[in-house]
């Protein structure tokens, strides 16, 4: 029996990298969105420019489950290299759409899968002369065919093509023709629509569809970042590039062409963080964007920024590690290396956005926190959030909001004779005052160094002042605890002894897993961490539950280690659930793990009644 489902299925495109499929696939995805049906698309791509296999999947989710689901109900198999594996991955009762210009033996197909064969190459060879056109329009032809098969309103697709090629109007007509070609051919060739299909809805609302790297970069623009130094590395490159694009539009003087920002593509990640530290020291809001290998290279400077107390913002778009690892796959495996970056005793502030919407918010907030705390602040994105487009609440900004520049002693303060000790804790919160170079002709100058010094920034190797300073830094970390975004509590419908802690891109899958479990009678309280260090609510949540799962996308349960270290909880109380194969975590996976490991906790009251 072929799968029957309206607005709830997964379609996967198997393509060859560099064949121009990405824009056609995006066109397909956005058409569904324009029909008011939520989607969660994901790229699965290789570290390659041209030739290797790449996949794009679109989860159509009328219920708004935005995490990855796993499996595929329909496969658009455009890559002969992976054909057999792609067919094998289709769910029973699913659909296979493929290019039948070259005949495929029936033995390679599956009896439990509906086969939809269209000779795309032949159609395009007849229609177009240039080889590149044949290749590019083949993608649009299959989008047309899918519109017919899945009941997507073809005028919606046409309108999007018009918007996409606005300004390159010559391209509109041939694209529309290719779309129609596929649409009409499919109508003739197949019985349309299929059992899986799209029906117009209004479930998208005012939400936006955007990549996390774009959102984080826009957050940096709104947060007042003026200096960006970076070194190209997947998957963070598009963050720096989005900052540049946005600044070019939003921060360039229309008359003079002067730029209210400076971007340096550095020679390596060490220089990138060095530029950020120098700019932060000199009073500009500065950041770098990088990934795991860059974080490894930046360690020494991060220790300097911590010890010399220089506002620094690092966007870490995490990928599969260690070493070069899986550069185009997602993980949450830089938690510990960032939380304790550098040699010596260090502790850092991490922000953990769940989606592009929060990447924007935290992207701006990071600069306030870095200035307020005078320390590095890490915004922990990952490849899934950063490089995939997600549906999320629209960006918002309160125009009355002011930048929090923290404790900066001004010319007037110095002129009035206020006592200035660069490392003097005046307010009891561990955060000292700083001066910006050039502030006053004769007062407030000090020497910044990575060596030990006293409260007035004078070099010393004596134990007393060193300990005094290190303990003040701990006090400052406790101050950070109160300033960072608090964890978000999602209470189960029924009282439960099971809790689950999660963070970042696990969010979408977790929301769905909690629903699935509740439907099976397993109720779970969920706590989404939004920052490190942890606020009091995290310890309270753990104490209030008998079994607490910590769900993460790394091998070593890094956040669990951090919870144990920071809160001193009993390790036995925290059970790790770990997904680290490089693909985004799914609700199916979380549901299975929790269901299997929570017996005995799931329905305690019912069991007592039986006995």
């Amino acid at each position: 029996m072929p799968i029957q489902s309206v607005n709830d299925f997964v379609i996967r495109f198997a393509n060859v990298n560099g064949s121009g499929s990405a824009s056609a696939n995006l066109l397909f995805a956005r058409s569904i969105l324009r029909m008011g049906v939520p989607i969660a698309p994901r790229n699965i791509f290789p570290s390659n420019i041209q030739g290797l296999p790449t996949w794009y999947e679109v989860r159509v989710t009328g219920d708004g489950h935005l995490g990855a689901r796993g499996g595929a109900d329909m496969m658009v198999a455009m890559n002969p290299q992976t054909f057999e594996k792609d067919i094998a991955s289709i769910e029973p009762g699913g659909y296979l759409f493929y290019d039948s210009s070259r005949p495929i033996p029936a033995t390679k197909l599956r009896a439990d899968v509906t086969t939809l064969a269209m000779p795309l190459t032949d159609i395009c060879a007849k229609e177009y002369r240039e080889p590149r056109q044949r290749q590019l329009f083949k993608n649009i032809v299959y989008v047309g065919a899918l519109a017919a098969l899945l009941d997507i309103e073809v005028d919606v697709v046409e309108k999007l093509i018009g918007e996409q090629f606005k300004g390159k109007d010559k391209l509109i007509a041939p694209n529309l023709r290719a779309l129609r070609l596929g649409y009409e051919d499919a109508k003739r060739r197949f019985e349309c629509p299929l059992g899986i299909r799209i029906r117009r809805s209004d479930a998208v609302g005012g939400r936006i569809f955007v990549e996390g790297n774009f959102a984080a970069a826009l957050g940096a623009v709104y947060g007042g970042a003026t200096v960006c130094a970076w070194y190209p590395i997947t998957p963070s490159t598009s963050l720096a590039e989005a900052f540049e694009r946005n600044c070019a539009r939003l921060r360039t003087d229309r008359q003079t062409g002067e730029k209210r920002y400076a971007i340096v593509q550095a020679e390596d990640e060490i220089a990138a963080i060095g530029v950020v530290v120098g700019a932060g020291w000199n009073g500009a809001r500065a950041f770098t964007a990088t990934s795991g290998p860059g974080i490894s290279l930046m360690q020494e400077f991060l220790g300097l920024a911590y010890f010399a107390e220089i506002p620094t913002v690092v966007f870490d778009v995490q990928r599969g590690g260690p070493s070069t690892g899986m550069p185009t796959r997602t993980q949450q495996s830089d938690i510990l290396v960032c939380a304790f970056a550098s040699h010596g005793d260090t502790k850092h502030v991490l922000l953990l956005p769940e989606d592009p919407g929060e990447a924007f918010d935290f992207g701006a907030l990071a600069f306030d926190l870095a200035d307020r705390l005078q320390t590095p602040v890490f915004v922990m994105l990952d490849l899934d959030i950063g490089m995939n487009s997600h549906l999320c609440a629209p960006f918002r900004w309160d125009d009355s909001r002011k930048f929090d520049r923290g404790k900066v002693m001004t010319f007037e303060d110095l002129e009035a004779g206020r006592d200035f000790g660069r490392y003097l804790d005046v307010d009891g919160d561990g955060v000292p005052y700083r001066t910006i170079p050039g502030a006053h002709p004769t007062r407030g100058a000090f020497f910044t160094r990575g060596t030990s010094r006293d409260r007035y920034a004078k070099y010393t190797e004596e134990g007393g002042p060193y300990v005094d300073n290190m303990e003040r830094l701990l006090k400052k970390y406790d101050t950070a605890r109160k300033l960072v975004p608090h964890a978000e509590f999602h209470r189960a419908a029924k009282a439960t002894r099971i809790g689950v802690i999660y963070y970042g891109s696990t969010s979408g899958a977790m929301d769905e897993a909690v629903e699935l479990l509740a439907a099976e009678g397993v109720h779970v309280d969920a706590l989404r961490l939004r920052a490190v260090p942890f606020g009091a609510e995290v310890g309270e949540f753990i104490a209030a539950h008998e079994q607490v799962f910590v769900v993460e996308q790394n091998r070593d349960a890094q956040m669990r280690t951090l919870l144990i270290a920071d809160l001193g909880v009993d390790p036995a109380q925290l059970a790790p659930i770990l997904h680290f194969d490089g693909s985004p975590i799914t609700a199916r996976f979380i549901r299975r793990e929790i269901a299997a490991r929570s017996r005995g906790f799931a329905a305690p009251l019912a069991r007592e009644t039986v006995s």
Partner: protein
Amino acid sequence: MTFLPKPKFHHPALQVNALGFTHRDYEGAISTLCAGCGHDSISAAIIHACYELSLPPHRIAKLSGIGCSSKTPTYMLGQSHGFNSVHGRMPSVLTGANLANRDLLYLGVSGDGDTASIGLGQFAHAMRRGVDMVYIVENNGVYGLTKGQFSATSDKGSKSKKGVDNLDSPIDLAAMAVQLGATFVARSFSGDKAQLTPLVKAAFEHRGAAFIDVISPCVAFNNHEGSTKSFDYVREHNIALNRLDFISGRPPIEVDYEEGTSETVALHDGSTIRLRKLAADHDWRDRAAALAVLEKHRADGEVVTGLIYLNDDAIDLHARLRTAKKPLNSLGEAELCPGSKALEAINAGLR
């Protein structure tokens, strides 16, 4: 106690510069380097240059890496903000500081270990980006704080204090700077303050990457017979290309020079330098000639000093990036935050 402040006592009759500052106002803490260290002479030249140029001390930022040379910013310009960063990374920190506030003057002090070994990459990229700075390398050919290892600027065949020959080829930082796009390149000797001080002044007036390689003998580990970075060796083998008198809008200082061998150059900022040609007929406008003169004398075991190359039409990093005239660190919400209306338009484009 390892921080030794100097007493603030001022004699009322002490001479002051155009800003009313005494020479003392440009000094720093007492040096903790070895007695007789060449680096202290360089600090003195920098202090003297800043005093004579009447630079407001608080408008100078002094940055360094790690090593003996990188300690020296503590011993000068006590009213300037300083930053002793990490080993070999002064150029990137200074680049960031410079981007944040284009209105300050930036002095980077480094050594041969800090620049020619661990920091060679950052040195190279700061030069090629045209960061507006004075980059001084206090070059002694040896690692002092770790007690006497060869550095990458040690000449092949130069002997260590323990009598070991250096087998590797030396890095000529001045030649590299020319090649990498520095627009002011000079070399001097810590023992020749008369040559060094005007070079430092001219470097401060230059808008762009100004590099000075100062041979600065290490009295503790590299001042012996057989070393090519000792006081005696450098004195004997010094080939001064020219002598520079820095005038800077004031009446020329009277100096003796032979008729027909001097040249007065007006710089873009209105200051003037006068160059007296000495040992070689060197055209300091010519990059190829700069490299050739360094190579020629290197082959003879001689040390070329003086102004090696100057391109006064330099365009610095800010000009290349077209950054706003107002320093980036002084911009506020109105200039930086596009506001909710712009955000609504962005939201609309993402639907």
